[in-house]
């Protein structure tokens, strides 16, 4: 076993009655790492966090912290601290007492507590707020108090349960940067739970994609985006055109009436696979210069680019291009070998089709849903 | 998980024990005494004796219904007007409704009694004007007056609390769709305040049917209501068994009345929000 592993989950199962929430989760987390558990509502990411914090007992499997099994250690004896979804600040205590809460339990001297709280307030940019009431703080300030309160205890690992979900977009972006800075400054492990893929990609060293209580993929943000393991990961992270394809032979895939060269290897002749092509990797050209061609069915201006839906042999592709097209135009597409990612078939194959029923709203709706 | 629920149950257990001892057991006692005689032997005598009290029961229910209806007629507009007044005065006005509710029933009954007595302030005034005094106390009207006076706040409050929660936008929407004031009242406001009306009815009807001091003090014992008869069995004639069977029937009757009412209203909401200020 590697030396710098701080938390090791081994074959964790959790179920509530008939519902299996976590199904054989195994995951190790390195010291000083920023790791994100990413997935849709009900995928089990929060439950995983609660298993580590000690609020949920796994039905089977081991929770190992610094090489020691801590399954039976109650939450108040674990060297981890949590930032809760809605912060869970104590409404009857002021900012100072909230942050000092853990320190007082440890029976630190008044002087020590004062110094530590001041240090924490400085860390989260809330100097001069110590006498304030929790009720009088804005959402962003409450967030900072929650961070200070958790960090005051000097945890080895900080658990963050969708901490930014309640903030508006601008504040969320600022806090992302700030959290990352705090993590690097303190050099402790952050385990971050979110359903926001952008947040996960921009902050993490490692991303763990989960669905249905099962880990779908573990990897760096680049891995996850560029080399998704299955159709679920490809669909959940970013936009993607996912095609049902039969390999002509290794390095050669035929779809949409054209045989494409590709770089992914290890697939046999005639093997059924899923192919992912990201919308931004497709180059638009005239029909005669394209490898394949089709008719534009919708164009949406997105600011940085246009989102263009093209019908090719009945399959609706999404393309992101900086050039505007007109609905009804015939256009050609060029796809380079390194833009084609080939995946083995999985239970998710066929669940994510083309963009025929695509609308922005569906994405937003699923964003609003809350975990648990 | 297991441990948590166990300790939770432990916290509630004193209360559970208490409820069994002092809520359930006493009710079992009522049933036990109803079906036994003074020596503790099983008998149906007490139940048979109830037939003598048919009129008393009907009388009590009749008085209860009349008092409840009068309360409803007075209370609904009151609650409606309070709910429509300015927020600043509203809280004071509703406190003025609650104050008598929290003042001892004895004090309230007593204040009515002193007003309508033969030598009370009203009759003194009438005599001063040169008229004959009017017999007010010890009439059926006095009993009804006492019930209405004592329990009116119990009707106003639940209706008010439903009406304040009523979104004014609904009223505006109805007007917008072409409804006049009467239609808004009958089609929107009244149906939406049903749960308040129901809990108001419960809170007036139950104490009215079962009261004994109102009919004693204001009716002078001339209008035997079931509460008074029950009280008599326990306090003067010392016939616990008959008293128990009368109480049992009273309880069942009230349960039936409630069930009938809830059935006709088809209300799934809990009828609450009354007693709690």
């Amino acid at each position, binding site marked *: 076993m590697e030396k710098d592993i701080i938390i090791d989950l081994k074959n964790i199962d959790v179920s509530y009655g008939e519902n299996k929430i976590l199904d054989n989760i195994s995951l190790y987390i390195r010291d000083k790492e920023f790791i994100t558990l990413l997935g849709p509502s009900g995928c089990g990411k929060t439950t995983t966090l609660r298993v580590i914090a000690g609020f949920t007992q796994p039905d089977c499997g081991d929770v190992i912290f610094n090489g020691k099994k801590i399954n039976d250690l109650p939450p108040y004896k674990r060297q981890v601290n949590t930032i809760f979804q809605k912060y869970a600040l104590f409404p009857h205590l002021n900012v100072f007492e909230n942050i000092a809460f853990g320190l007082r339990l440890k029976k630190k001297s008044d002087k020590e507590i004062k110094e530590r709280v001041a240090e924490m307030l400085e860390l989260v940019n809330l100097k001069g707020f110590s006498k304030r009431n929790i009720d009088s703080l804005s959402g962003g300030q409450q967030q900072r108090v929650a961070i200070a309160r958790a960090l005051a205890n000097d945890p080895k690992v900080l658990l963050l349960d969708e901490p930014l979900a309640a903030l508006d977009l601008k504040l969320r972006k600022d806090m992302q940067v700030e959290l990352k800075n705090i993590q690097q400054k303190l050099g402790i492990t952050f385990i971050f739970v979110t359903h926001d893929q952008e947040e996960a990609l921009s902050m993490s060293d490692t991303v763990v994609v989960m669905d249905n209580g099962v880990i779908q993929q573990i990897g760096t943000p680049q891995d996850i985006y560029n080399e998704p393991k299955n159709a679920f990961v490809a669909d959940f992270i970013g936009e993607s055109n996912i095609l049902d394809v039969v390999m002509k032979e290794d390095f050669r895939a035929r779809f949409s009436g054209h045989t494409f060269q590709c770089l992914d290897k290890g697939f046999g002749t005639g093997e059924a696979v899923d192919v992912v092509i990201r919308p931004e990797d497709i180059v638009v050209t005239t029909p005669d210069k394209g490898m394949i061609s089709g008719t534009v069915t919708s164009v949406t201006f997105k600011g940085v680019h246009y989102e263009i839906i093209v019908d090719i042999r009945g399959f609706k592709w999404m393309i992101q291009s900086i050039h505007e097209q007109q609905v009804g135009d015939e256009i050609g597409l060029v796809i380079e070998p390194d833009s084609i990612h080939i995946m083995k078939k999985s239970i998710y194959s066929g669940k994510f089709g083309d963009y025929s029923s695509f609308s922005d709203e569906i994405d937003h709706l699923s964003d609003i849903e809350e975990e648990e | 998980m297991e441990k*948590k629920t166990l300790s939770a149950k432990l916290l*509630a257990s004193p209360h559970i024990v208490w409820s069994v001892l002092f809520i359930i057991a006493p009710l079992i006692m009522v049933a036990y005494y109803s079906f036994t005689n003074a020596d503790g032997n099983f008998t149906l005598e007490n139940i048979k004796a109830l037939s003598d009290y048919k009129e008393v029961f009907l009388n009590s229910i009749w008085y209860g219904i009349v008092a409840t209806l009068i309360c409803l007629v007075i209370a609904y507009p009151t609650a409606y007007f309070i709910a*429509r007044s300015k927020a600043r005065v509203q809280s004071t006005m509703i406190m003025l409704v609650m104050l008598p509710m929290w003042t001892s029933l004895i004090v309230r009954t007593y204040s009515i009694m*002193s007003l309508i007595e033969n030598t009370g302030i009203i009759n003194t005034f009438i005599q001063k004007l040169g008229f004959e005094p009017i017999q007010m106390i010890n009439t059926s009207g006095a009993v009804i007056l006492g019930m209405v006076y004592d329990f009116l706040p119990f009707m106003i409050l639940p209706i008010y609390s439903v009406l304040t929660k009523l979104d004014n936008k609904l009223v505006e929407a109805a007007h917008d769709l072409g409804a006049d004031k009467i239609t808004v009242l009958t089609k929107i406001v009244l149906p939406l305040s049903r749960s308040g009306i129901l809990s108001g009815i419960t809170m007036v009807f139950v104490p009215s049917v079962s009261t004994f001091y109102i009919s004693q003090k204001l009716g002078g014992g001339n209008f035997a209501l079931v509460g008074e008869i029950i009280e008599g069995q326990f306090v003067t004639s010392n016939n616990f068994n008959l008293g128990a069977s009368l109480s049992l029937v009273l309880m069942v009757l009230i349960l039936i009345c409630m069930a009938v009412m809830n059935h006709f209203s088809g209300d799934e909401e809990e009828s609450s929000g009354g007693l709690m200020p």
Partner: protein
Amino acid sequence: MSTKMNVSSKIYLGLVYFFLYAPIIVLIVFSFNESTSTSVMSGFSFKWYGELLRDADTINAVKNTLLIAVVSSVCATVLGTAAAVGIDKMRNKYLRSAIMNTTNIPMMNPEIVTGISLLLLFAFSSQLLGIKNALGLHTLIIAHITFVLPYVILSVLPKLHQMDHHLSEAAMDLGCTPVKSFFKVVLPSIMPGILTGFIMAFTLSLDDFVISYFVSGPEWQTLPIRLFSMTKKRVKPDMYALSTLIFFVMLVLLMLINFMQARGDKKKEKDK
């Protein structure tokens, strides 16, 4: 819904309030009457209040009432708060609703039935135990705890419901044992509900007549019972004086409850 009121609705409200308050005000005014008349005011005096103070029975009843109210409301608050915490954590729907329904029986039942059912229980158990006179202070206290308990539970439960259930987890996360986290975090959060429940229990206990009437026995008179027995004789202004005193005590208590609830509401609004 609050809009402008027209004149006729103001008159209507005026009449209703007149109906509600005229009898009480008459009673208060005549409690200061110099003569024994309860219909002709002959002069202002505190004489009847003085007489009350010299009446040993009344003083005794006041003492009893206060003693019973304090003991039963404290017990009910402790018992009820613990019960509310337990009920709140219960996952078993049927057990939970069974407990709640039982708890609510004294609130739904006619008071006279609650009173006589307890009387029968006390009579039955004293017969079993061979005690001659079972009724007294302890039966009064038991009865009062029983009928005020639902009010305590019903004012604490919603506070537990509103409380962010992550709060106690947060406390444990920061190093509290479950017991400590209850006292340091949960209890302070539900304190307003507990206080409201306590004052309500206290008020209801002070006020109760019907239930006390049946379980008090001959030696233990509470104030409402004393008042009831006074009206058996001729009406005299000393009863008015006593009623007036009771009225004002209730006024103060009610204002206290209102004040606390207003404070709670203000806090809630701020939270939004």
